[in-house]
Structure formats: C-alpha cells, structure tokens
C-alpha cells in the first residue's frame, strides 16, 4: 500500500508528514434513511443514498465485525472508536443494535481493545428501552437540536413540514432522566440571533459544552454569509458565558488556531481528514459530508466483503478526499488565517468546476470572524518563547504505521 502522490504536486502539508494513519475511527451508518426532512441536510443531496439498503444489512454487519477484529489484531490496537450515524441511526431495530453491541463486546474481550461507541441522533425515537441500551452498552449519544422551538422548527421539520422540536426535547429529557448527559450539536441559522441559542442551551437546558456548526454548503449554493452570526456568537459567549465555563467547540477551535495551536475540529482548522464511513450495504467510503458534492461523489470500490478496513485508503475517492484535506489552494496558503482556518470544512470547499481546489464557500465570512476574534483576544495574549519542534517528527517515533515498520511514515 502506498500513498505516494499525496502533496507531491500541490502546495500543502508536507507529504512526508501526512501519511495515511491506521484507522482507529469508523463512522457506521446504521440507517441510510431519516425520519425527518431537515432543509439543510447534506445526506440526501446524493440520490445514491436511496439505492442503499434502509438499514445496515445483517451481512454487512457480520462482515464489518469480522474486518474490525482483523484490523484490531493486525495493528495491535488498544483502542477504537465507532460513531453510529445515519440518516437517523435509531431507525435501526433495537434487537439488532443489541446484537451488534454484543458482538463488539465480544471483540473487546477477545482482543483486549477498548471499542468506544457514540451515536448521533435527532432523539425523536428515544424511549426508555433506548436509554437502557445506551446505559448498558456504554453508548454516548449526541443530540441534534438547533435551539428553542422558534429557531429549531424553521429548518428541522418532518416530511409534512411540521417542526420537530417537541419530539426532540422529549427524547432529550428521557436521556437525562436516565442519567445520560448527551452532547448537543446545533446548526447555525444565520437569520437568527445566536444569543437566543446560547441562552436556550445554557440557561434553559443547563448544558455547558456543545457545538454550533455552520450550515453545510458548497460553492454554487450561494449560502448567506455567516460572519455576523459567528461574530455575535463569539461576543455574547466571550462577554457573558466564557467565565461561566461554557464551551462551544467551533469557537474553541478558532481560539486555539489563532493562538498557534493545532486544530481540534473538522469544521475549521488546519489538518488532514481521514474518516472512514461504513455504508448500510457494507461499502467503505470517505467522510460522509462529502456527499454534498452530489450523486455518487463518495462511492468507492471498497467494501467490508472484499477488503480490509485499511484498504480503503487505496481507493481513488477516499484518497482524493484525504489529499484534498491536506492540499490547500494558493489563496489559503497566503492567508493570515491559514493555520486557524485550514480552508474551513472540506465539504465547503467543493465546486463542480474545480472540485476541492477552492477556499471555503464561507471564506469571506471566516476571515471576518477570525479577524474579529483576533482583535478581541490579542490584548490578553502572553508571548512565550520555547525551542521549536515539528510535532510530526514526534509522531514518527510514537505511532504505529500501516506497514508496521516506520511509525506514521509510509512509502
């Protein structure tokens, strides 16, 4: 296996420093369908989704578990992460979810590798049985909620166009009644006031750590600018909530990037994206959000029936996405916010004409937002000098690689 060519012909991260790692994270699509019809959803922009089985097939599940165990043994992994996703993952039958989790427990027992599990859900289908399953099997849920009903119900609607806030809130309350504190993921509505969202999540729901994401969009969509929204979000957070320990992941990522630290988010920041997605038919694909590029855009020739998990890195579609994440356009490389922005989310760089060879569709907005945050935090910053070191060189010494010889570096 080789990743030669990564970074060879374009400016970007040094090819030697962005070798494809051993996968320790898989996004497992339990369902390809959803029970609601959010207006901004990226998933159904690719009609190929409808050709996939509605839920993960028994055969694909079996093959995945087999491949997972082989992968764990091959690379002697001590830890692995699975996030169950959809569509709406809770459309997957409960008895099958339990059977799958039992299989994962058995793999853990046989290999000694800890398999962490998360699930991202709209929470509408959550009942006491689901909460018991989460509790019993250590599945950490994240709930998608966009704010109070007047904001949430504008865009997160069912197939009849009705708002879904009440049902989501009911699911959220059931989780919390069972002692499960879920994560919250909100999508920004640029037409709304983020102060309202912050007040709702923090003061009404009592949640202090969450994320607010920009709406998924690609070039050609002409999405509304998000600078006013995120500038206001930062100001309200900084002036009112920061001292109370409230944390918004995307703001964290920008603050860390501006202060010279490495990225902590796919949304914004410099760094490679190496997500593997298991589809309901057993296909292995790149980062699911790239489906925003259109029909068949993430389709690969790899599947758990024919390939090892690690083999997907040789697939042109997967490799193309990985390369794109570390190959930035010239305009980004010359930007003062390069290391804080990293070109934004990979999916938001897509255009039909130039594929990923663009800055983010939100480039102008991110520049304004990052400029504003810099202006506000700069007077508080304290300069420290220390011996320089390339972290990647440390990686080489610490990590297992896919060829099992030179950690983190591949030929």
């Amino acid at each position: 296996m080789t990743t030669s060519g990564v970074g060879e012909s374009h400016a970007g991260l040094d090819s030697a420093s962005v070798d494809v790692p051993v996968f320790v994270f898989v996004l497992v699509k339990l369902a390809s369908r959803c029970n609601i019809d959010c207006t901004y959803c990226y998933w159904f922009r690719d009609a190929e989704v409808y050709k996939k089985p509605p839920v993960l097939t028994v055969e694909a599940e079996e093959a995945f578990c087999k491949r997972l165990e082989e992968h764990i043994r091959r690379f002697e992994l001590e830890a692995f992460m699975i996030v169950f996703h959809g569509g709406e993952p809770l459309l997957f039958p409960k008895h099958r979810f339990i059977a799958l989790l039992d299989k994962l427990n058995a793999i853990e027992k046989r290999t000694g590798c800890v398999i962490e599990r998360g699930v991202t859900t709209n929470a509408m289908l959550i009942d006491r049985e689901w909460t018991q399953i989460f509790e019993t099997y250590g599945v950490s849920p994240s709930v998608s909620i966009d704010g109070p009903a007047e904001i949430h119900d504008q865009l997160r609607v069912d197939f009849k166009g009705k708002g879904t806030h009440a049902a989501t809130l009911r699911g959220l309350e059931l989780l919390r009644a069972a002692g499960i504190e879920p994560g919250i993921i909100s999508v920004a509505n640029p037409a709304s006031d983020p102060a309202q969202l912050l007040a709702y999540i923090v003061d009404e729901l009592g949640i202090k750590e969450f994320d607010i994401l920009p709406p998924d969009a690609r070039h050609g969509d002409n999405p509304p600018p998000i600078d006013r929204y995120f500038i206001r979000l930062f100001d309200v957070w900084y002036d009112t909530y920061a001292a109370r320990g409230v944390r918004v992941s995307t703001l964290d990522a920008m603050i860390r990037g501006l202060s010279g630290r490495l990225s902590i988010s796919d949304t914004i920041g410099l760094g490679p994206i190496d997500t593997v997605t298991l589809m309901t038919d057993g296909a292995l694909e790149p980062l699911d959000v790239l489906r925003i590029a259109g029909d068949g855009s993430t389709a690969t020739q790899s599947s758990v029936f024919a390939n090892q998990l690690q083999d997907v890195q040789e697939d042109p579609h997967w490799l193309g996405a990985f390369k794109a994440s570390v190959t930035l356009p010239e305009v980004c490389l010359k930007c003062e916010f390069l290391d804080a922005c990293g070109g934004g989310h990979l999916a938001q760089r897509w255009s039909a004409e130039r594929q990923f060879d663009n800055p983010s569709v939100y480039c102008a907005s991110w520049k304004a937002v990052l400029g504003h945050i810099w202006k506000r935090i700069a007077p508080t910053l304290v300069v420290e000098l220390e011996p320089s070191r390339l972290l990647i060189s440390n990686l080489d010494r610490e990590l297992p690689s896919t060829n099992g010889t030179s950690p983190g570096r591949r030929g």
Partner: protein
Amino acid sequence: MASDNEKTQEQQKQIQDELKSASVSRRGFIDRIKALGFGFGAAVTLGVDGADAREAPDTSVNLNSTNPALNAIINEADKPEGQKKPGDEGIQMAWYRRFFRRFYRRGWHGGYRRFFRRFYRRW
C-alpha cells in the same frame, strides 16, 4: 553589546507590547514574528509546504492568555488534566490526528473527556 539572551528577551517584550496595544493585525503579528526569526502557528508545527514553514526556526512563539477562560481553551489538549510529562508531545499529536478532531466534531459531550483520558493513557 547585549547577549543573545538579552536580545531575545528584548524581542519578546517588543512583540508583547505590540499585542497589548491591540493595534497589530494577525498578519502584522505573523510578519513581526517571522522577521525576528521565530516560528509560530500550526502551519509551522505541521510543516506546511508553501507557507514559509518548511524550514522550522529554532525558536517558536507560544501564546497563552491572561483571560482564564481563553487560557483554558488554548492549553486544554496540550496539558490534559495536568498530566503532561516530558516526551508526551507525540502522544498528544496522536490524539489530535486520530480521535480528538473527529469526536470533538461529532459528539461534543462529557463522554469525550472520559474517552480522552482513556486513550491518552493508553497511548
């Protein structure tokens, strides 16, 4: 004639004063750091080709904050629960690349801390 140490301290103070004045743009700040021969930012850390970062300087500028909330964010993953030890840098980088970014994005919740600790210790 000032020693190298004194000269470096003087340069550090100059940069600090410029930051405090709140008048320096990020471009101005980066240019200033570069002119003084120091490195700064993820582009330098990761060795971004085309971003004047291939040749890493001997000394890097780190920024912390006098604001406790900002400082906690800036340093959180660098010093998880005060357990940072010499030689752990590679482990932190491993975390970034393999878990933190994805899980942070996908599921921001209390569970991630448990996850973080677990993986951090294992690696």
